[in-house]
């Protein structure tokens, strides 16, 4: 449970940070609705909605049938009528069932109506592998990054979950908020007073001079572990948590790569047309050719078998190897 930890911060579990952000926003906006499977008295798959049903009632914390197309469509329609809505899609794999109203209607509504209709909707979903197999493990965020009109954010810890969800719930248009199964056991410091994490702004988590590692979501923790390993080998890695995948904060990323001269990207989703591909190409559009490497899972489905799952997923060791390889190939800095 939460506990005061001084200096204006409180220690919260990841799920508690989500519940706090929602509670504050539901208190502020009496229209705000939450729709999803088991979001009511059950409190959400990860207890991230715990306490909200008792506080705000079943009308606002509304359990839905298992029907993602209808769930997203209901949220889009209510939001388009001015009733801000958060739709909880338990696992990101099931977003595929609800993409039509999100991609074909919500993302286009403001443009196609010349601003007469906006869709203040947040779709919150949980990505990532944790032993549940090929259709309960996927990270599909890069699919959404190229949809004009959609914003996409991915927290990596309780503070960013709280701040990004607060910001997402104040947006005029649709936002997809992607958390991760393996973030839920984590706790962290969250400011005691209300605050917001700006959408479109990355966070520099670790300063370094030899290589820039760009990542998001749970993989931030893997990147930090790899940075500690690299430090032992004499490599000083800078780590950037993107937080916002659409829009991308290329100013922060390009400034870092301009300094280190080498880019490594890390993601749990597929690298083909992935977040890293997009980041790397945009960096090179700004800076010209830069040694770069993408690290991600194997190009394979994620099995529930623990041996196969572990083999498929990227880990710190794989990132360390990739960074050392790219550094050995790159010219030493300062020798143009």
């Amino acid at each position, binding site marked *: 449970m939460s506990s005061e930890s001084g200096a204006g911060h409180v220690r919260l579990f990841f799920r508690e940070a989500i519940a706090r952000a929602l509670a504050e926003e539901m208190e502020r906006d009496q*229209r705000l*609705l939450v729709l999803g499977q088991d979001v009511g008295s059950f409190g959400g798959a990860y207890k991230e909605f715990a306490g909200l049903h008792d506080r705000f009632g079943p*009308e606002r914390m509304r359990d*839905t*049938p298992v*029907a993602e*197309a*209808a769930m*997203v*469509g*209901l*949220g*889009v*329609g*209510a*939001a*388009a*009528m*001015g*009733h801000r*809505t958060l739709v909880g899609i338990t696992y990101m794999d099931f977003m595929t069932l609800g993409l*039509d*109203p999100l991609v*074909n*209607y919500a993302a*286009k509504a*403001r*443009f*196609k*109506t*010349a*601003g*007469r*209709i906006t869709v203040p909707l947040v779709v919150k979903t949980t990505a990532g592998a944790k032993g549940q197999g090929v259709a309960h493990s996927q990270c599909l965020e890069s699919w959404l990054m190229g949809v*004009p*009109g959609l*914003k996409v954010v991915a927290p990596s810890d309780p503070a960013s979950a709280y701040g990004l969800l607060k910001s997402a719930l104040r947006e005029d*248009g649709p936002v997809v908020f992607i958390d991760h199964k393996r973030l839920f056991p984590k706790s962290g410091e969250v400011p005691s007073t209300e605050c917001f994490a700006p959408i479109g702004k990355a966070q520099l988590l670790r300063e370094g001079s030899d290589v820039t590692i760009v990542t998001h979501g749970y993989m931030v923790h893997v990147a930090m572990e790899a940075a500690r390993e690299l430090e032992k080998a004499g490599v000083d890695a800078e780590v950037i948590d993107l937080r916002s995948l659409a*829009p991308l904060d290329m100013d922060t990323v390009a400034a870092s790569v301009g300094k280190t001269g080498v880019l490594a990207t890390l993601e749990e989703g597929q690298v083909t047309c992935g977040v890293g591909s997009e980041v790397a190409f945009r960096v090179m559009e700004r800076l010209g050719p830069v040694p770069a490497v993408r690290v991600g899972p194997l190009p394979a489905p994620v099995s529930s078998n623990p041996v196969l799952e572990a083999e498929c997923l990227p880990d710190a060791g794989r990132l360390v190897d990739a960074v050392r390889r790219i550094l050995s190939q790159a010219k030493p800095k300062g020798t143009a």
Partner: protein
Amino acid sequence: MLIRAFETRLMARPDHGFQLYSSGEEAVAVGVASAMRTGDRLLSGGRSIGAALACGLDSGQVMAELLGRIAGPNRGRAGRGHLSQPESGFFGAHAVVAGNLTIAAGAALACQRAGEGGVVFAIFGDGACGAGALHETLNVASLWKLPLVLVCSNNGLSISTPVSSGVAADPLSSLAGPFGIAHATVDGMDVEAVAAAASGFAADARSGGGPALLECRAERFTSHSSSTRETRPAEQVTAIRERCPIAHLSAELLRGAVLDETALAALEAETEAEIDRAIAFAEASPMPPAEEALHDVV
């Protein structure tokens, strides 16, 4: 009469653009719109011209929108596929078959939450009846007693596929039965029948009685779209056009002495004059500046 004249004149233009015409199905849109009150909303599929004009949108603005002019309600960006003017009750077209149904349910949820008696109507084609979105919508609308009147304008063909090959249920309104939703099938060429059924279902929805599914058996006088080839034999289309909903109503009104021939002719002349004004209004409006391609995106 306005819808028919509007579409007939639009079709005749070389710059008509890509359109799905409502000709033949006017009575469905007009009958449903007659059941609407202030605060109600209507969503249509891509066959939207009839629905928009029936909601009372200005014919000049609609013509401007369809011709891509900035005087359209959506500055010419939406076209008939996505035309909208929410403040007039026409919440909008959405040209994904069955794509408007879950959104209509969400709008109905907002009306229910607001507690002001608003009802949402959604018009869709028979082609949408095989889609999962309809079944998901029926289920949740029934569970939550949403103020939602679903109106299927069954013109018998999904582009070229007959409804008997596309949907197992017959009549289509029977799809609502297993969900415990009130339903009916009426003659969609008879505006009074459509209006009576829609008004009855709307009254129930308004008073908390929950949703309804109204199937209107209608006829499409043209091919699926302005760029789709006609699959029906010419003599069949001619025979279909004999069942004109406007001629049917006109005859009824003359028989009942509500209108005489002079008044009917005056009405027709006034309609043509309105279309003249609509076209002039649209033509006077420019196309959008190219930089609007990036406006209102995020």
